[in-house]
């Protein structure tokens, strides 16, 4: 009987972690000692990174030896757990891409920007980590072991503070405006959005990225977004983009029927 209870307990725990809930700490494939480290001993996140995308590998689909073809990690993530009474709003927004904040050339927000098809650069110091995104020339400066300011104002990219939990860099992001979307079509959020990002460097020099999104006004439970970030294959520089300079799209988009 005791054995049976243990089996049920394990099954229950597995179910809790397998569907959109915060995953356990990213598994390291080898001994952490093999990680590239900064002078202060922390894993070295410095460099140009990108989630899997066209610009990273080129259109020939080139892959570097040893990196495999995986683009996500962890247990499967279910659909965004929107409140039932908001499902129609999500569908309506998703059906008309003119309403997509990125079509309107707005900053992509967190964590959507991490999945952009253009790269970003991490600059790491013991006291601050800066992320310079090519997407819309956006940046975040993340103080380490500091509290959020008390006079925060709603912002596209929110306000970020970071801390090291072992070898994982954890970023707490709050003070969002309600203009950006979460990953996925029509995935609006409220100003109560709270994002916890986890950047875990792997021995193969990739980063397992997880963003846990909580927004009690629109989501019924936390939702996860996971990516594998890779260094770009060539010596890249973050380039300038100004999305609004010649944005012809909104006037040519044909809305789809709302399902």
């Amino acid at each position, binding site marked *: 009987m005791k054995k049976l209870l243990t089996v049920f307990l394990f099954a229950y725990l597995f179910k809790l972690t397998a569907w959109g809930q915060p995953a356990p700490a990213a598994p390291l494939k080898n001994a952490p000692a093999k990680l590239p480290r900064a002078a202060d001993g922390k894993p070295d996140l410095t460099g140009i990174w990108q*989630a*899997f*995308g*066209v*610009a990273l*590998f*080129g*259109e*020939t*689909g*080139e892959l570097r030896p040893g990196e495999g*073809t995986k*683009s*996500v990690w962890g247990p499967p993530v279910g659909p965004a757990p929107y409140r039932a009474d908001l499902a129609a709003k999500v569908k309506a927004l998703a059906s008309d*891409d*003119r309403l*997509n904040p*990125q*079509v309107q*050339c707005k900053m*992509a927000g967190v964590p*959507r*920007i991490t*999945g*952009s*098809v*253009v790269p970003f650069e991490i600059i790491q110091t013991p006291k601050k980590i800066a992320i310079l995104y*090519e*997407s819309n020339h956006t940046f975040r400066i993340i103080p380490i072991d500091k509290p959020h300011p008390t006079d925060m104002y709603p912002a596209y990219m929110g306000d970020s503070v970071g801390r090291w939990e072992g070898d994982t860099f954890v970023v707490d992001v709050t003070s969002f405006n309600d203009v950006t979307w979460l*990953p*996925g*079509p029509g*995935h609006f959020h409220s100003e109560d959005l709270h994002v916890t990002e986890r950047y875990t460097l792997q021995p193969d020099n990739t980063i397992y990225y997880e963003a846990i999104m909580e927004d009690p006004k629109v989501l019924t439970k936390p939702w996860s*977004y996971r*990516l594998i970030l890779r260094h770009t294959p*060539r010596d*890249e520089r973050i*380039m300038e*983009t*100004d*999305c*609004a*300079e*010649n*944005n*012809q*799209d909104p006037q*040519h*988009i*044909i*809305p*789809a029927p709302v399902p």
Partner: protein
Amino acid sequence: MRHILLLSLLLSSAGLRLSAHHSFAAEYDGLKPVTVTGTVAQLDWRNPHAYIYLDVKNESGAVKSVIVEGHPPNILRRTGWGKDIIKVGESITVEGWASKDGSNRMAGRQVTLPGGNKLYWGPPSQ
């Protein structure tokens, strides 16, 4: 080819993980492939999309302008393009898909350069 297939598979399974400027289906019809040959009238190397303005002659000799949407310049630079790869007055062939709004715009996928080389200009129809 194997690599292209692999890339297509990975991209199609990418779903909401990747975030581009707009969805392909919002403007273009992936079921209406188009191939045009014409003379480059203008190359607009700007964000969020680069455009080729192509003068295309029909059977009666009348010239129609076709606007070919592509990747933004930063992605084009990383996939082998430069501003001088095609020049005004040169003849090129573009494969892609028609716009949904019935205008003279198209989504360009692949360009055949004057020397016969092929380069991708825009994303697949997904």
